[in-house]
């Protein structure tokens, strides 16, 4: 069953008399119970897309439905059914943790008690600070409170706009574990992120760049579409190695990637010789989502 349907959606902004196309004829579906990520850098159009689907702004073109309801004509129905966590912390800073949660529960004609089982896992972690003002919480705690508030009316779909941006590696891991548990409760989750490595934690991902979808599939399928052989090379001095790689015609592309440089070549023998001369370790590696994103951004390989 399709929970979110996006069909040919475009969104423009005018900035200093020039028009910026934030979303350029985007189409995709999200199935019920799916954990779906929109992955892309700042300015890719992630927030615009989420605001359209949550009925906060209007698209110039295209149709979108959420839970079967049109985002323009039936927005009231949609607002009852969704939970939305914007990228910027938007709770009441001057209310306490508990007051914020109570406020959102009462807006949706429910109570904390009624849906406590859904948020227990998350709220328990901030319950010791329930009398603290939201504005005085740390980033990680604010995030947990915002997620609790977005869940308190038991929504069928959750929209999370960059919940892990600027968050350290550990809190990011914990956050994704929470999402997995929510998914098990049957909630459809749309999440956006600039972190490519989070793709592997999702059922399907859409790679978004400059308002266009570069690819949309399961992480495994996206990675398997990377047709070229990808090499990884490493030596003592990494920056001189990178410059040396670039000065050779048989290197199609080379870029730093963790402790190695990733390399695409049109001549494997030359590359092997090069590695020998530089006393460098050379091996074939599986591409990651980030390699795919880079390739798609440049249209360098058939993907």
């Amino acid at each position: 069953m399709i929970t979110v349907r996006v069909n040919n959606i475009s969104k423009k902004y005018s900035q200093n008399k020039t028009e910026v196309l934030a979303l350029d004829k985007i189409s995709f579906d999200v199935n019920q119970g799916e954990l779906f990520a929109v992955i892309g850098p700042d300015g890719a159009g992630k927030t615009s897309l989420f605001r359209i689907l949550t009925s906060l702004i209007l698209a110039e073109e295209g149709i979108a439905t959420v839970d079967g309801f049109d985002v323009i004509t039936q927005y009231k129905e949609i607002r009852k059914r969704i939970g939305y966590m914007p990228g910027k912390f938007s709770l009441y800073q001057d209310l306490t943790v508990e007051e914020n949660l109570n406020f959102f529960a009462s807006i949706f004609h429910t109570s904390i008690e009624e849906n406590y089982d859904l948020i227990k896992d998350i709220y328990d972690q901030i319950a010791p600070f329930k009398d603290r003002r939201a504005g005085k919480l740390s980033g990680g705690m604010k995030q947990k409170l915002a997620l609790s508030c977005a869940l308190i009316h038991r929504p069928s779909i959750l929209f999370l706009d960059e919940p892990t941006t600027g968050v350290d590696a550990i809190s990011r891991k914990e956050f994704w574990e929470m999402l997995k548990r929510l998914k098990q409760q049957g909630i459809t989750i749309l999440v956006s992120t600039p972190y490519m490595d989070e793709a592997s934690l999702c059922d399907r991902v859409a790679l978004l760049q400059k308002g266009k979808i570069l690819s949309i599939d399961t992480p495994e399928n996206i990675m398997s579409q990377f047709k070229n052989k990808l090499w990884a090379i490493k030596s003592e001095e990494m920056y001189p190695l990178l410059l040396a790689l670039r000065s050779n015609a048989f290197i199609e592309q080379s870029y730093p990637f963790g402790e190695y440089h990733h390399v695409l070549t049109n001549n494997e023998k030359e590359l092997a010789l090069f590695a020998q001369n530089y006393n460098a370790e050379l091996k074939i590696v599986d591409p990651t989502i980030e390699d795919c994103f880079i390739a798609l951004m440049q249209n360098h390989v058939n993907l």
Partner: protein
Amino acid sequence: METEKVIIVKDLTKSFGDFIGTNAITFDVHKGEIFGFLGANGAGKTTAMRMLCGLSRPSSGEASVAGYDVYKYPEEIKRNIGYMSQKFSLYEDLTVKENIRFYSGIYGLNKSQIHEKTSSLLDQLHLLNEKDSLVKSLPLGWKQKLAFSIAIVHNPAIVFLDEPTGGVDPITRREFWEMIYQASANGTTVFVTTHYMDEAEYCNRVSIMVDGKIEALDTPSNLKRYHNAKTMDDVFLILARKAQRQADQ
């Protein structure tokens, strides 16, 4: 031969009442080194960095930055370092050219130096056509590259980078790191924080702070070997999971 040390820190501590933000940290950073300063949110990184930048007076311990003592010469330190953060680095309502001129002036470059720097930077960054555009109209990646160039416009001994690549696309992120490599090759010391663990691999050495203390400090390959971990991400998780204090307690 001992390489020149540009940051020397010994038992550096900062307390806020009962709370010890940075707890007796000790380390050195060498000239031209790319030094990764990692830690979970709330581990004490910002507190430590503020002391090293001459913005906050330590409670106890010793530190010298670019040859200047942090207690006695904080103003000298500010003149001899560059600083850039993800949040604020440039004036959005000034043009590209105006930002370069403004910061060059602040850092005491004279008229002809400013003129020279402006044209060389615009050229290097391929921003000639954008020189009269407001900074706010630039894509984030361009902004960050410009901000980095401006942070080192006065050839500082050390540049401090606080999460410089957050949200930037993967290609620009790498271009940014190549600028860091270049600065380091030119002898500028780079002190950088990041949440991208692959970027920790690009550093010569990495320190990991947990609960206000430096829990580990070594090259990425030594850290991985020692902790029997495949990636820096794993090393980070092993160390930072030990944290007792919450970011907000």
